[in-house]
């Protein structure tokens, strides 16, 4: 069957002899456009998922960083408080040390006095020996 060149104004036949409203060229470009659009949408979708996962990852990282930061601050505070604790402990120990020193001094004086007594008594016994 022969293809009519121009069946009706505004109507066209394509290669498969189907009747068309659009010009075949336009139809083809439209088709191509559609294909391309579809492709574009697909790629955008892909991009979105990629970006989404990226954001997720970054968020996770941020959380991790936050956690680490808190940890660091905590550690720093702990360090500071340990230093303070050390100080107070040192102070306490020093107080105890002063106390012990005073006790030692007391005992030293007592020891000296006892030594003196011993000496006195020895003198007396020696006196006995001489006389």
């Amino acid at each position, binding site marked *: 069957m022969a293809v009519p060149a121009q069946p009706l104004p505004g109507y066209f036949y394509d290669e498969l002899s189907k009747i068309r409203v659009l010009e075949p060229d336009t139809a083809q470009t439209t088709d191509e456009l559609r294909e391309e659009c579809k492709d574009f949408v697909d790629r955008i979708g892909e991009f979105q998922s990629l970006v989404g996962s990226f954001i997720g990852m970054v968020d996770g990282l941020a959380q991790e960083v936050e956690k680490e930061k808190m940890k660091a601050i905590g550690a720093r505070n702990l360090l500071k408080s340990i230093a303070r604790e050390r100080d107070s402990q040192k102070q306490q120990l020093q*107080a105890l040390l002063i*106390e012990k020193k*005073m006790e030692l*001094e*007391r*005992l030293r*004086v007592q020891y000296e*006095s006892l030594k003196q*007594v011993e000496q*006195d008594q020895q003198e007396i016994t020696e006196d006995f020996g001489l006389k």
Partner: protein
Amino acid sequence: MRLKLSYQEHPKHSELVSCVTWGSSSELYSVGDDHLILKWDFKSGETTQVAPLQKGTYVTHIDWLPAQAAGGGRKQSSRPEIFVLTCTDGRFLLVSSLGRVEKAVEAHKGAVLGALWSHDGTALLTNGEDGAVKIWSRSGMLRTSLAQSASPVYSTSWSPDSDQVLYTNGKSLVIRPLQPAAKPTHWKAHDGVILVADWSTANNTIVSGGEDRKYKLWDCYGRCLYSSLLHDSPIASLSWSPDGELFSVGAFNTLRLCDKSGWSHCLEKPSTGTIGALTWSSDGTQFACACSNGQTLLAQVVNRHLEWHNLEAVVGEDSIIRVKDVLTDAEERLELHDRIVKVSLGWGHLVAITPLQGFIYNSRNWTTPVTFDLKTTTVSLLLLTDRHFLVADNVSGLLVYSYEGRLVSTVKYPRGSVASLSVLTVSISVDTIAIRDKKEEKVVHLFDVASGKELREGKPLCHKVEIVSLSLSQSGPGSQRQLAFLDQNHDLFLTLVRETTPTQTYQTVSLGGMVGSIAWNDSTNMLAAVTDGRLAVWYHPLVAFTNKDLLPQTLVRQEDSNFKKSAQLVQFVGNCCVLRRDDGALITTSVSPFPAILHQYAASSKWDAATKLCRFVKDPALWACLAGMATNARDLNTAEVAYAAVNEIDKVHYIAEIKALPSAECRNAELALFSHRPQHAEAIYLQAGMVYKAIQLNTDLFNWERALQLALKHKTHVDTVLAFREKHLTELGSKETLAKFIECQGKVKIDWDTIRSKIENEENRGLQ
């Protein structure tokens, strides 16, 4: 001395504990900011909740009504026990022991910061943020508003006799008598605001602490006795132990146990936060602390150290006493299974008191103690002597036990005033007990140990000035029992308490001034004292009654002693004196051993050996002692030798003259005169029927009235007395003033010839 602290694993209070107090039967009550009142029983380790408080009631202080006042003796024991709680909203609450609020009283504007019952429990003293100090009756009626100051009053305390009140006012302390007219004593005590102050009933000393991070000791005139080192934080709490020997100090993470003279026995650093309140248990063995982290800390005083000759005892933890004999190095472990309230070591015995029971150990046999029962859990005093020991408690008074555990006697002394007795105001010897009166501090009561009755029909010894401390000599016969006492002016006096012929009043002799503390030797009658920062020892103080001139010669001062002013004598055992310096160091100094030996010789009348010893030692002090002893024992030969050795020529002549006297009575009487005891001499003459001698004695002493009295009584020598009196008056160129003589004038004829012949007659009679 150490503190043993016991914590709870988990604090029982969820918030800070604001106050603690001991109940009448040794359980502890604590109140916290979590609105709970908890009752602690340390025997079983249990705590029970007494009662929850209303929400919003924050308690600042708790005080238990004194047990003796609540019970009122034994008659009203059914009366419910109460305690007082003070609140931040300006009220105080009277609460029964079951936790029921009996009464709530609006007392102050702003918070009430403290409330204290007086010692007899009849009045309540409150202080508040509004600067007011008020006194309330027991039922909560306002009696007086004692003071009103501009700044909050943080702390108050009753005086020992409850008629004065101490309160803090900013940086000052104020003592305010209760009589409205009396003037308050006021002094600046600290550089910061004073937070706490406590007045000891036992030793009349005040301790205060404040934001200047120091604690200080004061006497009741506001003189500073001790000022501590700077602490790390403000002093938040202070408390005296009931016996006045120790006090405890609390601050942030700090707990200190101090001696009564201020130096610190031990320091603890518990991590409990600020210790805001402290209270001692009534037996003085432990105290409780209210801590800001919710802990209620219990601190027990352990490792008390006792020494006597070669024995050393340490009262350790868990009711174990370790006794060590230094000579043999033998150690004994005495287990008592109950809290040890009091321990004393001396005269070869160790007496330990636990609640309701006493244990007597003999140093020869540590394994089987003798036990005796007590009626009460709190013993305030335990004193040992050679044969007996004295136990003082509030329920049964003063009891004397023998070392076999037998009750020897009960001293007739008011039971209620036993609690205020201390080592300084009570002394016991083998036969006598001396007690300073509680109210009249110038008066000393003397009791017989065997009967418990007061000597000389209850006539006490009265001194002119308040007596601070007293001590009885420990050895020698009863007739030589001497009481040494110190008065408020630091003068030392000596008196014979059991003379064979008692006079109307006790005869006292002053031994000197500026004396700090005294101690008798345990085995001989030597007296040691701290004067002017030096140790002085009277080798034979009895000489003060027989020949006072010898007294300075028997006194030996230790020149090289290096202790400071306020050293206290701890004991004088054997020939060693132990002193405690004001920084707490114990100093032992030796005293010559010869006076002790001389005392032994004199006691057994070995005069030759005594003379030999003096010749050997060549010490004038020893010779002087011998002179005194020999005169006292009427051994004239030895006395003559001894007086010659100390260059008392007049005395030697006198003794030679006495020796030449024919009769024993004459010699005794002359010896009495020699010892400055004319009354004694007169009594001897009269007893021997030598009336003329007695009259002559009085005329020689210009004791005219007595001479005439004797002459008239015995109807002899009236003319002699009148004649001598007339002669005396003409020599002085004055006129007769004595009524009796004026009366006799003219009635009797005076003829010197007859008088002379009469005298001659008498003297001849004496020679035969």
